[in-house]
């Protein structure tokens, strides 16, 4: 059995070797946001298989049966938003396993209960491989989500969702260190961190084995943040990455419910594309709403909320609202098609990025699991393009994503040797693979 840890570690060593050649300290394990992003990009460029990125997009409440899946090359009512993108989209209706209210995390493959990686959602598991050389292993943004339902899980803990595009942008691209007395600035910050590091060690000693894992996670986080800081004072950000252009529409950026859902989704998609382009991460998750679907469409004929369109409206109304969500996803796909890929000159981001749309129900109108809409949009060579299919379940789609990204070697049930759990028991939706 391959030691995937060794494989991941080798990727890191290759990365560090590149860093060394660039004249930066080879002791780095995680680079600072912007400098790390650049180095990760260069590293990816040097890989023979090219860069690989994935964006998981959650849409709530499935789709009305019969109104989502295209027929051949003809889009359906709830997929009209993908007009012009048919050639790179793979639409598939599946049985959504474990579907229903409050179960969004299951559509990202969380089926086990444990405190280790084996119960992580698929985005986190994939990130543990693809995120080995990026400043952020993964990052999750959302639109009008609710704390009652957070889609990602890592080590038994919910992964925080950033619903404010402004806050996400600020965290990823803001906070530049001062340009003068950088050594003094760094010394002060590290001194502060040293005090906290000592406090953590002291608290660990005092508590013994109790909550040791919690405190060790905190120590890891402190180490990562310090590393980012160390390099950010010594490096020039790549062009356009210190303040990537976004929000061409001039929308409000706080992600509040007063802002149209689609506008916030567009802003978050801008953040996603910029973060991926600048090498800050290779895995992002976009949670569009939550299972109670209390959001409204700002320009839809149906005036109720999405949940109302499921239970107290016509199928056509529900399809319109589902298509509204499709517009959110389609915007992301188009942005990836437009953006050049710095890690692979001559290509676009969509050539090396896979957009995976998942959902928590088949048909939200009766909470059933059948005919659940899943979609993969990409020009990544591991996947087919322009297909329409049905069959199997959503977990098999997730396994196909893993295989298509070339991560099959990391998949298995040996907690010591693998990083990605075979959520469908090894069964793969091969119809999606090239």
């Amino acid at each position: 059995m391959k030691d995937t840890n060794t494989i991941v570690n080798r990727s890191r060593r290759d990365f560090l070797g590149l860093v060394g050649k660039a004249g930066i300290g080879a002791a780095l394990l995680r680079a600072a946001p912007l400098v790390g992003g650049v180095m990760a990009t260069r590293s990816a460029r040097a890989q023979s298989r090219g860069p690989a990125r994935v964006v998981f997009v959650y849409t709530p409440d499935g789709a009305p049966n019969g109104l989502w899946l295209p027929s051949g090359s003809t889009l359906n009512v709830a997929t009209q938003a993908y007009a012009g993108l048919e050639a790179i989209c793979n639409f598939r209706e599946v049985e959504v396993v474990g579907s229903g209210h409050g179960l969004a995390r299951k559509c990202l493959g969380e089926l086990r209960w444990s405190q280790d990686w084996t119960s992580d959602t698929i985005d986190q598991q994939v990130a543990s491989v693809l995120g080995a050389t990026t400043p952020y292993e993964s990052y999750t943004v959302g639109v009008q989500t609710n704390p009652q339902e957070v889609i990602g899980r890592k080590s038994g803990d919910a992964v925080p969702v950033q619903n404010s595009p402004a806050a996400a942008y600020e965290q990823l691209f803001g906070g530049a260190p001062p340009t003068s007395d950088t050594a003094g600035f760094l010394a002060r910050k590290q001194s502060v961190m040293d005090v906290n590091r000592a406090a953590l060690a002291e608290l660990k000693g005092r508590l013994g084995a109790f909550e040791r894992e919690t405190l060790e996670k905190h120590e890891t986080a402190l180490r990562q943040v310090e590393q980012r800081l160390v390099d950010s004072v010594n490096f020039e950000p790549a062009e356009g990455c210190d303040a990537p252009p976004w929000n061409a529409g001039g929308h409000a950026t706080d992600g509040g419910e007063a802002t149209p859902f689609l506008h916030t989704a567009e802003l978050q998609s801008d953040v996603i594309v910029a973060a991926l382009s600048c090498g800050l991460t290779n895995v992002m998750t976009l949670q569009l709403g939550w299972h109670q679907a209390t959001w409204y469409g700002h320009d839809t004929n149906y005036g109720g909320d999405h949940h109302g369109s499921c239970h107290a409206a016509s199928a056509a109304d529900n399809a319109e609202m589902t298509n509204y969500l499709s517009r959110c996803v389609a915007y992301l796909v188009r942005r990836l098609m437009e953006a050049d890929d710095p890690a692979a000159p001559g290509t676009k981001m969509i050539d090396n990025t896979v957009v995976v749309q998942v959902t928590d129900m088949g048909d939200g109108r009766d909470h059933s699991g059948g005919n659940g809409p899943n979609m993969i949009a990409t020009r990544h060579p591991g996947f087919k393009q322009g297909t329409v299919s049905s069959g199997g379940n959503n977990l098999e789609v997730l396994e196909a994503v893993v295989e298509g990204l070339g991560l099959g070697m990391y998949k298995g049930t040996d907690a010591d040797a693998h990083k990605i759990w075979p959520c469908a028991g090894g069964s793969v939706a091969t119809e999606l693979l090239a």
Partner: protein
Amino acid sequence: MPTPTRPPAPRHRATLTLPLVLLTTTIACKGLVGGPEDPNDPHDPNHPENPGPEPETGVAFFEARCASCHGAFAGSADITTGNANGDFRLDANAAVQRHGDGLAGYIDAAMPQGTPALCQGRCAELTAAYIRGRVRPVVPTNCDPNDTTTYGVRELKLLTSHEYQRSLEAILGVQANVGAAVANNDGALGGFANMRGKGINSATLESYIANAESVASWAVTNGRPFTCGGHATACANRFVDEFLFLAFRGPVSDDQRAAFVALFEAYPADGMRLALEAALTSPYFLYRVEAGVDLATALERGYYTNTGTNPGSGGGPMGAATERIDAAAFPPGSGRLDGDVWGFFENGAVELTFTAPFTDPTTLEVDARGTNHDAHWPELTVRVDGQQVGVARVDTTALTTYRFVVEGRTGTPRVRIEFNNDSGVPPYGPGQDANLFVASVRLVTTAAEPEPEPEPTPPGGEGGLVGVDADAYVLSPYELASALAFMLTGSTPDAPLLAAARADQLTTRAQIEAQVTRLIDSPHGREHFEDFVTQWFDLDEVTRAARPDVPEFTPAVKAAMVEEVRQHFAHVFYEDDAPYSEFFGGDYTFLNRTLADFYGVTGNFSDAFTKTTVEGRGGPIASGAFMAANAHVERTAPILRAVHSRQTALCHYIDPPNSPIAGEDIDAQRAAAQERVAQREQEGVLSSREFYFLYTDGIEACAGCHAKIINPMFGMEDFDHVGRLRPAAGAGTALETIRGEEVAVSLEGTLFGVDSTSDPATVMYSGAKDFSNRIAETDAVKSCLVRRGFRYATGLAFTDRDLDAANRESLSEEQREAYACIASRMTEALEAANDSPRAMFIALATESLLRLRR
């Protein structure tokens, strides 16, 4: 967490490595899957539901035929764990209550759902007997009144964003809402904010660091927590003794002291700012540490011996109390307010009176700065009751703290701040030369010497450590102070509470109760318990309700709706003559001008909320907040109103409508329902009640909940979709307006099941307020207060019914019994004080499970 027992894998299916449990569960709950020779015969050996050899006992039958959907009974629990999602939990008490002697017959006819042939005859009899055997008495019968020692759970928890914000406000006077930056990491348990199991990742840590940097910068600019006036080491030690003692909720270790001193000494000009950054990102600030030490160590350290000392606590001294008067609060006198300092431009004085009494000694700390004329600097003179206590030369333009120790004074003497050496040297006249500026004056008292208690060390249940189990952990007095503070105020412990911890005055029940009462009755305590009802009834949901067709439904109105219910709860909480039953059954509510105008209530109102007698509204259910939140853009939401009123007021558990209950004919049934709605709408506009009834009636898979539990409760339509009362249209009806058309809607409703959805009791009502009145004095409402209150205060589930299945909670047998007895004592305290929630929480806060942990 117990694992539900799985039926044997169906023989025709390909072997899967994982996840066998979930797939089998899903299929078993949904019905037949293809493969056997005879697909209609569940006893066919190749049938996927065939359980193999016939079980012999009731428990074996249950595990074989029922557990895949219902889960298992863990330990002595009377409710199962549910399926892999935590759904379909089987409540033995409720099942027996509902079916009585007919339980076996019900199983025989209807269970397992979809394939009842799998459990008939002997299977049904034995399974019913097994379920009966799981029934437990609702009221505990074995609580020993002489042994009230109980144990909580050791914890290391991050502060919630709310606790984090409150703590910063308390220790530094922060006004900006910095908690919002970390709110996306908040967790929840049982419907209340709870950080159990939450950790810090690098993204979250970056948010804490960014907050700390901005708060530190602001604090230094504003002289908080104080201004360093001299030697870096002295400043550092003062920072550790005074500020860190508050921020870290107890004394600091010598190593941590040394680390902070090193920070000040390395960066003298920047020490305060960097120290604040370090403090506000320290694990000692960010985590609530409630881990304790083992009993032997606690005894060795002399915890809770009530001897007036706390030898195991370590750390440095601090004043027992600090009162502060800022320049903006100076009374009229000489000089004037100049920005945020009081300027003495000529000789003169101001006289201050503190509310806290002086102790002997007392320290007065004055933050002051000056402007000079050549070498002439102002002098600061302090007098107490006319007697000069000190003169300081203020020879710096930077705010500096000057200390004056006052001895031999008690009570509340007058403190006089004087400027007496204005130079007036020609050609400079008064006002154009040396001036004195004072920013604030602080009174720092010292802890009084405790009086020794003559009683012996009390037992564990009464505050001491006698009879405590050897494997228990004991919180230090400081950890207990922290636990009490967050439990009762949602904020960090204040100086008096920390002083009590330091003096080992959190030992006897009386001592603890004194602090508990003080905290509950404080402004922060009141706000904290108003937050309790806000989270319990999800009141803030109304602030997110968009109703574009009602422009007067403004953010101010929504905020006032939330405050209406908060004020009502505070009233029954704090007023001795207002029993809890008035929260649901009172004939009044609390209105201000904004809300009265919106509701159309006439009277003399101001911006303040006042108790107002009204008809038709009052309480958490019959309120604008509940009714507007449980509505849609153009209609009300009778389904949400029914479900949420059961869940919040009565603590009923209702399974979410998830996929395993969908039937094969659901598409056709749903289409038929839509057709009915369409046909009826051709005849005229449908009321929301009828609209939602038609959509949910006649759909077999949904009938289990909608026919009995939900739809009969559609009698709360006296409130419109923005929380206003609708005009009456005759007895028991109201007028609803849909798209400009009026339609009469019945207000008749029936609550089937009061203690649970299965109990045989019913309540018939007409309208939301009538519903609220009729349940006001039920045991279910009172019990729900106890259950929710316990969860809010301790973060723990009371019974198996309260477990948060989504977060994999469980209770041990010991916890079930102990918490049942605590519930009993809480209920006794509630009832003994005229149904006072305040008395109930006081009783809970004095339980030993706060101090003793496992």
